[in-house]
């Protein structure tokens, strides 16, 4: 029974990298550098997943986010290349409101987490291996959501192709 209040130096390092690169993603002027920092941030989140004994999720994170989504972002930035120049301002007039709202949100959420004590802590032992268990669950208990999400992916793929192709006129 532990609430995991002891975290190692790896956690501090990873969270430092995540927060710094996440801040870079939302604040840098050059949108292309933002995408590169997004890659770094998502990669560090994969490290956090490994610390939390979610090896499959870490691999999926690297494959899908770093390998697909971030590359997709970089492609889109390159295709809209005259939007990435330094002369164009990347932020709108809501910066003050945005800082206010997000800081308030962060502080209140952290206070809420700190005050909450109704969680019953329990250490799971994933002796069979997380990936094996996840695969079995996907094929038994979560069969319907699994199929639905594959239909969703197919629909998203067709939709993206239909939206992005050239009009024949």
């Amino acid at each position, binding site marked *: 029974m532990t609430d*995991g209040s002891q975290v190692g130096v790896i956690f501090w390092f990873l969270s430092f990298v995540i927060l710094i690169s996440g801040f870079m993603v939302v604040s840098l002027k050059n949108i292309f550098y933002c995408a590169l920092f997004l890659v770094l941030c998502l990669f560090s989140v994969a490290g956090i997943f490994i610390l939390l004994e979610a090896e499959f999720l870490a691999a999926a994170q690297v494959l899908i986010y770093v390998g697909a989504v971030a590359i997709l972002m970089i492609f889109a930035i390159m295709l809209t290349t005259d939007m990435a120049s330094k002369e164009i301002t990347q932020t709108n007039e809501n*910066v003050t409101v945005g800082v206010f709202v997000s800081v308030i949100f962060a502080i209140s959420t952290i206070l809420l987490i700190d005050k909450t004590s109704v969680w019953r802590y329990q250490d799971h032992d994933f002796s069979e291996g997380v990936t094996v268990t996840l695969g079995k669950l996907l094929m038994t208990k979560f069969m319907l959501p699994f199929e639905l999400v594959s239909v969703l992916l197919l629909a998203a793929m067709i939709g993206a192709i239909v*939206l992005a192709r050239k009009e024949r006129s």
Partner: protein
Amino acid sequence: MFHYLALAAILFSIGLFGVLTRRNTIGILMSLELMFNGATINFVTFNKYVVTDALLGQMFAIFVIVVAAAEAAIGLAIVLLIYRNWRCIKTDNYGVMKW
């Protein structure tokens, strides 16, 4: 556990700030990815430390990742379509689409 949840909350707030302040639509989509990741860290943390059915949190995190990938594909397709029509993807112009 507190540390992980706090990290997720701060990451979510950074993404929220990006969504509120970005003028470039691709920047907004990237900030959305940050918010998704904050939520996913929460799911995995609760899965590890709090009593649940086995691996429910990680299962949900997988679905979050899949839906985020679909959202990114559709979102960027829409962005490219808008760029092709207007040669501009700033959010200021989207008011034109109101009727």
